[in-house]
Each structure stands twice: as structure tokens, then as C-alpha cells.
């Protein structure tokens, strides 16, 4: 922080003296003293509007009563909030507000948590109003959000939140005077990001959630503070339950890394855990079909077959896959189980789908496995570079930090995205950027090379670096000079001026944060692109400086945790290499048992080994490779060949349908543990309801396996596992308000600049293959939608109201060219197969590209080829060239 000692002013509130930083509002200062001044329109996240006139207070030397929400505290101010004049003012304003407010309390969902009710009770406001109250026609607003405008007190909090914080501007006040009502901006039902912000911020029952309408009263609810189970942002949520039923999700203002903001998934997606299709009993395959069994039978079956296979084929005949949605405790126990009880390093997690690229890049260059920056650094940055993030859809809360940096702190936003700036119903990050470069995902590498070239040629290389590592600088410069501006322009479709300008902005920033998202990290060659990005930051001197850093965004809620817990074949807990002698010794000492040393197989390799029959048994926890990987990888055949396939799952997925034993697992709503968000911040997960049916948390199941196999790894509860993790990983798990991010390791940087970069400099600094687009084809890309996360959210009744299926999103120019209208059925085909879907025309899709949300695209996977990165073994299968033909 720049100002350590901000200027303070001293003022007196109701006789109590307090010193506050300059610029604090009187209402804030009063809160610090413990005086709650009633208010409706004031909210700490929003600019003061002073329209409700409820927060009037008496300020000495000012003739009229002043609204404390818009009055800034000055030195020597005396404020009185409890005099008769002020009390009468509050009462009269309350009377005015109640004048047109309907007597809806019995039927209003806000009853019990309503600001107006509470203040009326406090001031025993009466109403002499004997006239007719104004009413508004009730209109359909949206499937998930309900408005009852009669109750609106016109505080405009919802409008301001949607405008200032979310930058979506979906709500607007219509009409004048008493007939002001809040409607969606345009004569149509609400179509927005459905973040639930307006529902949470409305002080009365004018905007409520339809998902849990009429189901509860606030005094009946039990609360559990936990972490969202969808994306990597790790928002803190409060899950409200009644009688073991999930009722709703709130967030507390200022709490968690998200500061109380949520997105559609967090706010409306929680009912995925209580879907009726949840597995409630263990299943065993008998005579070809899965039948219900008891836990004893299932565990004995697993133990018996595991022992048999281990005896006949050895421990290397086993493999394990775990989802990045499991808690840290489960991930740790899983890799310990596979390594000790089973005895193999063939284990992997869903972090392999993309997140590993970012983490490996960070380890190679700066020696950390976590970000060296935090969300606060993003907010305080003066230059933000976003590459392949689609941040407002994939990681919306990190997106909110970016928006805050741009809107409130005037940060310069540079974006390299596969989006076009266009105003739509959900926010578009490229609308806010100062310089935007629109490229196809396969050309992100070319764009980064363009930036590097502009940096080298524009003389933006840090002078101290030139002296420190001259060989590195010259090698990179030479490699970059080999590339031609014309080739770059043809590949990316962007001229050199854009890159030159962007490089200048980047180099001129003092606090520069580069964010890389899943669209980049899951694409082919992403590891190389990340290394190039780190080169870019290094060369401009922005990697080691304060407030600067590289930030790869995680897709699933605990992808970062999966890597840190060692649920990766080549890594041990604490992100130490398996090949590192000291690391192995340390873990061996902690576990009191020897580790297997043979290199383990990664995700695709395991499928290959299963195909050839070397791997005969697979333990899959929460993962669904049959539904996630393209059939070209042969995953279904490979898994069908296994002698033992054990799945721990929430639902009967495609993979579980092939299993020999399916065990019902508990969702994140039903177990305790910790998640590590994309920043590296470890947060506590607490159970909201009891496990559904007979399901158990994954760590309990793994522990039971180990007991039945005779090598018990027993724990009383999840906390004991966390204790062990803390003992094994030095300095782990700072569960606290904000993480202390690791600093860039200078030794690692030195190593990289002396020899590390040489390893693959030549391959990294070549342009990726150009896309050749034929007529009638588009470049199909799998994307993440704002309203879904993986396949888990497709079980949420709330989210399915907004996006019930995946539509092919196309640019209007492409649609016109192919003779398509919105809603037309089309067949996508290429050499691999066919897929039929419906068209949706969307302005922000660049020409030549078409997007398909991957949450509903299991059947479309056959169109894609899978390419495995030679370094990080990440499978990339997110783009394919397809022809689009209209069908009936």
C-alpha cells in the first residue's frame, strides 16, 4: 500500500470521539463507534445516492439536517443522531415510505429480514395515510428473479449495484415521481448475469428469488458458512437450510475473497447437490447390471478384487483419477492411498485438463506454485493484461476485481481474447479494455509473440535485466527477430501497431498483473505460451516488482488444491518433484513408509495403459473421463477393458455406468474440509446438510478402502487430515483473512535465465500453425458458460432455468453467410463425426469462430481431436474445424 499513514480526522458522534481516515462518510464513522444510523439507499459498495433521506442527522453549524451517507467527516465535526429532531425526521421519512408500501408482510418473502420492517418496529412508525396506494402492473420478470414493484421504496440500490459493481446495467428505473418502478433495461423480461446481487441488496421484498419463493421464513433457517463448489474463484457463501433441505445461498457483505459478491452459479446453483438423481446407495455390478448393495458388500468387493489384482499383476496395474472438486483433505488422502496402500504413482486429477500448464510455467520460471499476487493486487494494479480468460463468464468474481480496477482505480486494461467488444446481456470484458486484440484461441501464442516482438523492438527491455542475464536477453531477442510482422499479422489478423501500443502500455505500467484463463490454458501449446508470457513479464522487469505478477485462473473450485496436495503423478504434496531426493525423504519420514519411485502415468497415459491391458484397475473419484474426453482417445473402450473400475460419484455418469462398483459420495454441501482457490487461499468448507441417503465423504470412503485392504489410513474427522497435511507441507494452510502470497524465488529465476529457457526456446518462439478456413466451415470451440461449471451445475434446477441446453453461438455475419437464423437446427460435421444443435446469434463471437458450451457437449466431443502436450501432458481438444449445414 502506498499511504501507510493516511490522514485522519477527529470527529464526535453522540458524544463519542473517534478518529477516522480522511474521506470517510459520517455513516461509516458512526458504524465504527457502534451507532447504527437507519438507511435504505446507502451501501458500502456503492456511490452514495442520498435519495431515501432516512439517514438524516444533526450536524453542528449546518442549518438543515444532513444525510450522513453523503456527508464526509471533517475535523472537529459534531454529529448527533439521537436528538428529538432527528428522531422525528426518521419517523416522518419512514411514514412517507410506508405511505405507498403495501401491507404485504404476511405474503412477502422478505418478512423477517426486511429493513423496512425493522425500522418501523424501531420507530413504531404509524401511518395516517388514508388515501389510495399506488400500484404497478405485475409483470413477468425472469424465471429466477421476481419483482413486486408495489413494495419498491425506490432506493435504486439494485440499479446502482448492477451498474457500478457488475457493469451489466440490466436494471433501470422507469417512470417518474411516485410511479417510478424498476424494470429491465428494455421492453423484455430480465436477461442478465443472474448474479443475484439485486436480490441480496434490495432492502425490502421488491426483488426476491423465485427459486426459493415462499419456502421459508428467516427464523427457520440454519446457516453454514462454506465455499462455493463451482469455479476456482472460491467465493465464501452462507448456505441456508431448513430441515435438511437446501433453501438458499447468501453472501455476507465484505466477507471472503469475493467481498460478498456472487455469480449465478454460486447464488442459484446450489440445488445441484439435492437433485433427485443423486446416488444414495452403493452399487455393484452383478450379471452385467448395477444393483444396490450395502457398504460392507461394496467395500469387501473392492478389497477382494484389489488384493487379487495386486497379487497377480503388481501395484503398477492400478491407476487413480480424482476430481479437482474434492476437498484438500480428500485429494491428499487419495494420493497417499494410491502411493502407500496401492503402491503406484499412476494418479492424476482434473487439474491436468489445463491448470497444470499454468502451475508448471510458474514453477519453471519463478519457482512458486501459487500466484505472487492477490485479488487486492489486481484491484490496485495500473495495467492488467488478460489473455484467453473470457473472465466475465469463466471466473466472474476475479472479473469483478478487474472491473473494479478499471472503473474505480482507472487501471489500463489490455485484453487478448477470443471475444469482440459488443454490448450484450452479460458483461463483456473487452468493452472495458483500453486496447483489445481479438484472436482465435489457437492463435493466442502468436499474439503473445507479437507482444514480445513489440517489446524487444520498442526497446522496452528492462536495463538491469540486460546486465544481469545478457545471454538470455540476446537469445530471446534473436528468436523473436526471426518472426516477421507480416506473418504475425496474417496469423492473428492484427496489425503491428496494436502490439506496439500494447507493449508500450504494458511497459509503462508500474503494477502489472497478467491473467491467463482457461481458454488459453486448455488450448494446444498453452505451456509454451505461459512461458512466453513469463518471458514478457521478465523482460519488461515486471515479474519481480511489487504488485506485479502472473496469475493463471483455475477452472474448478479446487484445481489449485489438487496440485498442491500432490494429486498429480509427478508431484508430491507441497508441489515437490517426485524425482527430488530430499522431498521423497521428507515425505517418507512423515508417512513412515517408503514411496514408490517409478514414474507414474498421467491421465491420457493411463487410458493408453488401460487400453493395452497394463492397467487393470482404476479408482475414479468424481471424474468422468468418458464424458469429458473425446472418443478419439479411446477412453470408453479402455475403461471397458478394466478388470476393476471403482467409481466414487455423486451421480450415475457415463463413466460410473461402466464401473464394477459405484460408491455414493457426499457433495461439497455435505462434508467438511478445505478448498484452495485460484489465488492459493485456503478456505474452510463446512457441511450444510447431512450426506444424502447413504453417501459418505470421499475421504471416508478412501479411508475405508485402506482399512479393508489391510493398510489402514484412519482419521477421526477431516481436521485430522488437515493437521497431517500441515505437518507434511511446511508452512501450509494459512486459513486467515488474506493470504501472504509467496514471493518470486530469485534462485529459480536465475536458474531459468541461465539454462531453463534454453530447453524449448526454439519451439516456443515459432508461430502456431495457421488456421485454414474453408467455405462453409467455422472454427468450433468448446467454451465455459457463465451459468454453468463443468457438468455438476447441469443438475441444478435453478441454473437450468437460465440455460437449459447448449446452443451453438455464432457471429451474425457468419450466420447470414451460412443462411442461418437464430433457432435454426444445424448439423456440424467433420471427418470425425456429426452433431446436431441449435443456433444462437451472438454479437461478441468473432467471425469465423463458433462456440459450444462444453457442459452439454458430451455428444459433440466426437468432433474433436486430442493433442497431448509433450511437456505437461495436458490433453487439448477444445477446437475443431467443422462444416455447418442447416437441417430440419
Amino acid at each position, binding site marked *: 500500500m502506498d499511504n501507510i499513514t493516511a490522514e485522519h480526522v477527529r470527529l464526535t458522534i453522540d458524544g463519542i470521539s473517534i478518529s477516522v481516515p480522511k474521506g470517510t462518510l459520517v455513516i461509516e464513522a458512526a458504524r465504527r463507534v457502534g451507532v447504527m444510523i437507519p438507511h435504505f439507499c446507502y451501501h458500502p459498495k456503492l456511490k*452514495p*445516492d*442520498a*435519495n*431515501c*433521506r*432516512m439517514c*438524516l442527522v444533526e450536524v453542528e453549524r449546518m442549518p*438543515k*439536517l444532513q444525510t450522513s451517507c*453523503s456527508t464526509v467527516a471533517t475535523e472537529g465535526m459534531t454529529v448527533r443522531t439521537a436528538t428529538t429532531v432527528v428522531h422525528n*425526521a426518521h419517523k*416522518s*421519512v419512514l*411514514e*412517507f*415510505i410506508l*405511505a*405507498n408500501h403495501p401491507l404485504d408482510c404476511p405474503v412477502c418473502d422478505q418478512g423477517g429480514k426486511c429493513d423496512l420492517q425493522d425500522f418501523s418496529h424501531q420507530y413504531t412508525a404509524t401511518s*395516517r*395515510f388514508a*388515501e*389510495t396506494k*399506488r400500484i404497478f402492473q405485475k409483470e413477468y420478470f425472469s424465471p429466477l428473479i421476481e419483482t413486486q414493484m408495489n413494495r419498491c*421504496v*425506490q432506493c435504486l440500490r439494485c440499479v446502482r449495484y448492477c451498474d457500478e459493481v457488475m457493469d451489466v446495467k440490466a436494471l433501470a*428505473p422507469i*417512470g*417518474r*415521481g*411516485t*410511479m*417510478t418502478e424498476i424494470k429491465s433495461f428494455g421492453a423484455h423480461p430480465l436477461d442478465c448475469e443472474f448474479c443475484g446481487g439485486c436480490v441480496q441488496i434490495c432492502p425490502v421484498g421488491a426483488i426476491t428469488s423465485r427459486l426459493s419463493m415462499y419456502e421459508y421464513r428467516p427464523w427457520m433457517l440454519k446457516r453454514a458458512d462454506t465455499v462455493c463448489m463451482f469455479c476456482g474463484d472460491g467465493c465464501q457463501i452462507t448456505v441456508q437450510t431448513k430441515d435438511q433441505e437446501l433453501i438458499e445461498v447468501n453472501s455476507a457483505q465484505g466477507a471472503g475473497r469475493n467481498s460478498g459478491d456472487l455469480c449465478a452459479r454460486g447464488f442459484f446453483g446450489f440445488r445441484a447437490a439435492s437433485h433427485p438423481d443423486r446416488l444414495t446407495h452403493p452399487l455393484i455390478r452383478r450379471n452385467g447390471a448395477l444393483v444396490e448393495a450395502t457398504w460392507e458388500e461394496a467395500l469387501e468387493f473392492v478389497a477382494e478384487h484389489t488384493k487379487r489384482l495386486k497379487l497377480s499383476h503388481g501395484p503398477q496395474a492400478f491407476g487413480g483419477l480424482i476430481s479437482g472438486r474434492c476437498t484438500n483433505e480428500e485429494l491428499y488422502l487419495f494420493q497417499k492411498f494410491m502411493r502407500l496402500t496401492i503402491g503406484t504413482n499412476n494418479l492424476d486429477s482434473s487439474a491436468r485438463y489445463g491448470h497444470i500448464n499454468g502451475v508448471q510455467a510458474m514453477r519453471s520460471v519463478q519457482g512458486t506454485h501459487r500466484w505472487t499476487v492477490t485479488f487486492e493486487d489486481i484491484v490496485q494494479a495500473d495495467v492488467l493484461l488478460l489473455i484467453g480468460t473470457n473472465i466475465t463468464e469463466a471466473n466472474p468474481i476475479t472479473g469483478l476485481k478487474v472491473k473494479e480496477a478499471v472503473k474505480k482505480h482507472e487501471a489500463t486494461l489490455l485484453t487478448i481474447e477470443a471475444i469482440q467488444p459488443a454490448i450484450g446481456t452479460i458483461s463483456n470484458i473487452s468493452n472495458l479494455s483500453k486496447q483489445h486484440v481479438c484472436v482465435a484461441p489457437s492463435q493466442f501464442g502468436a499474439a503473445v509473440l507479437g507482444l514480445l516482438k513489440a517489446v524487444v523492438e520498442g526497446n522496452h527491455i528492462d536495463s538491469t535485466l540486460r546486465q544481469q542475464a545478457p545471454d538470455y536477453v540476446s537469445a530471446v531477442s534473436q528468436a523473436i527477430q526471426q518472426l516477421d510482422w507480416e506473418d504475425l499479422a496474417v496469423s492473428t489478423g492484427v496489425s503491428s501497431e496494436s502490439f506496439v501500443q500494447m507493449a508500450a502500455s504494458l511497459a509503462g505500467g508500474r503494477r502489472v498483473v497478467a491473467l491467463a484463463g482457461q481458454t488459453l490454458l486448455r488450448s494446444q501449446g498453452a505451456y509454451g505460451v505461459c512461458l512466453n508470457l513469463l518471458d514478457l513479464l521478465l523482460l519488461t522487469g515486471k515479474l519481480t516488482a511489487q504488485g506485479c505478477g502472473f496469475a493463471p485462473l483455475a477452472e474448478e473450485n479446487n484445481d489449485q488444491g489438487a496440485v498442491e496436495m500432490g494429486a498429480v503423478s509427478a508431484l508430491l504434496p507441497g508441489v515437490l518433484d517426485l524425482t527430488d531426493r530430499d522431498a521423497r525423504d521428507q515425505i517418507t519420514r512423515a508417512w513412515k513408509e517408503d514411496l514408490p519411485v517409478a514414474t507414474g502415468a498421467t491421465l491420457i497415459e493411463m487410458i493408453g495403459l488401460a487400453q493395452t491391458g497394463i492397467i487393470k484397475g482404476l479408482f475414479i473419484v468424481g471424474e468422468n473421463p468418458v464424458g469429458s474426453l473425446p472418443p478419439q482417445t479411446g477412453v470408453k473402450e479402455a475403461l471397458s477393458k478394466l478388470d476393476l473400475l471403482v467409481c466414487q460419484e455423486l451421480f450415475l455418469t457415463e463413466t460410473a455406468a461402466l464401473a464394477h462398483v459405484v460408491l455414493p459420495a457426499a457433495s461439497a454441501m455435505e462434508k467438511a474440509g478445505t478448498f484452495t482457490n485460484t489465488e492459493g487461499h485456503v478456505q474452510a468448507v463446512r457441511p450444510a446438510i447431512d450426506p444424502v441417503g447413504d453417501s459418505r465423504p470421499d475421504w471416508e470412503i478412501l479411508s475405508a478402502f485402506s482399512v479393508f485392504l489391510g493398510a489402514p489410513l484412519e482419521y477421526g474427522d477431516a481436521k485430522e487430515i488437515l493437521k497431517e497435511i500441515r505437518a507434511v507441507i511446511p508452512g501450509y494452510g494459512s486459513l486467515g483473512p488474506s493470504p501472504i502470497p509467496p514471493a518470486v524465488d530469485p534462485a529459480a529465476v536465475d536458474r531459468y535465465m541461465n539454462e531453463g529457457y534454453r530447453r524449448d526456446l526454439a519451439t516456443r518462439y515459432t508461430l502456431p500453425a495457421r488456421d485454414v478456413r474453408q467455405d462453409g466451415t467455422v472454427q468450433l470451440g468448446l467454451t465455459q458458460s457463465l451459468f454453468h461449471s463443468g457438468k455438476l451445475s447441469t443438475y441444478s434446477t435453478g441454473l437450468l432455468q437460465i440455460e437449459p441446453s447448449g446452443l451453438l453461438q455464432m457471429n451474425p455475419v457468419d450466420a447470414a453467410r451460412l443462411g442461418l437464423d437464430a433457432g435454426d437446427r444445424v448439423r456440424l460435421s467433420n471427418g470425425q463425426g456429426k452433431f446436431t444443435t441449435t443456433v444462437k446469434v451472438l454479437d461478441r463471437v468473432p467471425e469465423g469462430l463458433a462456440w459450444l458450451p462444453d457442459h452439454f457437449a458430451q455428444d459433440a466431443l466426437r468432433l474433436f481431436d486430442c493433442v497431448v502436450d509433450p511437456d505437461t501432458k495436458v490433453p487439448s481438444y477444445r477446437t475443431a474445424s467443422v462444416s455447418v449445414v442447416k437441417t430440419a
Partner: protein
Amino acid sequence: MESLEGKRGLPRIKPPFPATHGLYNKPTVVNNIETLANLPYIVGRGPEWFASIGSPPKSTGTRVFCVSGHVKQPGNYEVPMGVTFRELIYEHAGGMRSDKPLKAFIPGGASAPFLTPSHLDVKLDFESVAAAGSMLGSGGVTVMEEGTDMVWAALRLMEFFYHESCGKCSPCREGSSWLVQTMRRIVAKRGQMQDLETLVDLCKNIEGRTVCAFGDASVAPIMSTLKHWRPEYVTLIQEAESANLIKLEPAGVRH
């Protein structure tokens, strides 16, 4: 300024004032056309010439007064400040239209409190009108002859304020609606005696508690008509009570 910037026309929170943060957050001065129309002459003939007209030291120069209402020649009249109302109405505007006696007049637009015939000799400048209990405001002089129903006049003005209220702050928005409905009831002979107390109370609650001066302005007609012509209100209410048009339903009675 908000409209020019493309937003809803709602008043801003002051401070900061337009002089420092106005249109597009730049220092802005907002002036009436009348003020600007005076500028060429002041620049041409010198400020001393302008200062010599009217009633120095505060109210100098000429003003354009829009005389409307029950006069023979309603229109805009440019007169030097300091001329009396009597002169303006009877000499310049030709006097009352049907030669009936004057009952009331508004000296400065809808937001100025009403004045009675006893104030006819008040001079048209800021200090004198303020001393008389009203304000010079925009210079829109509305004249009402004998026979005008003052309650109706107050209602008409209140309807104007209700229609024009922007709806930002609670007292003005809800208060203007409430006042209009009460006044309509009184005029329609459905009023009660406690309505008068309510009116005064509401007006006091709106004054000084709003974002902009519109709130203070909107209660001026009702307050001033109640002050000077209270018997008219009482008459309407007494008529209502005797006609027994109100059917009161006592609260809390079960069927």
C-alpha cells in the same frame, strides 16, 4: 446536466457543486436565458449603467416579469426592479380583467408563497418580497381575482408539483402524492378536520428534508393558502361533514 450526460434527470448530491464539478465533471456555470440576455447591454453600456437602474444595492437592473392570471393584458413585462406590484398589475398589465377586486397573487412562480392585497405596495425586489414572506423567484406573477377558490388554486399547484416530482427522494415523492390526494378529497367535499393538521404536518416534514429545493417549493402553496385563507378550507370541510358523504368504517370490526 444529468440529462445532457445521458442519464436520468435527477438532482445531484451537493457538495461538490457545479462550479467545481459540473457537466462531465468540469467546472460549470448554469444560467437562465434572462440573465444571459442582459449581458450584451452590460458589456456594451457598462456595469455602472446597469447598477443605476432598479433599487440598489442588491436588486439592480431590469427583470422580465410574466404577468398571468386574471388581468386584462397578461404578458411579459420588462420593468426596473423596485417597481411595486400595484404598478405592475394595474398599470402595465391593464388591471383586473373583470375589474373585480384582487384576491391573491403569486409574486415569483409556483414555488413562491401567496400574497394578499395588503402586499400590493411591496416593491419588486428581492429584499422587499422576502420581507413580505414570499420570494421573487423567477418573476412569474400570477394574479387571482375575487371569487377564486384558493383551495382549488393550491390543489392545482400541488398537482403540478406532483406531476413534476422526479421521484428521487422519499419525502417529495411520497409526500407530493399524499398531499395531492388529500387536497383532492377536500376539494371534492370528502375532507375532515384532521386533514388540515395532516397537511401542515406533512408540509413541515417535507421542507428541509429533500435533496433539492423542489420539496420546499412544493409545499409553499399549501402552507401559504392555509395561512391566509384557512376559513375556505374549513368551509369545504364543514360542507363535507354536513353532507355526510364520507362513510367511515371503524377499523378492527369483525364481520
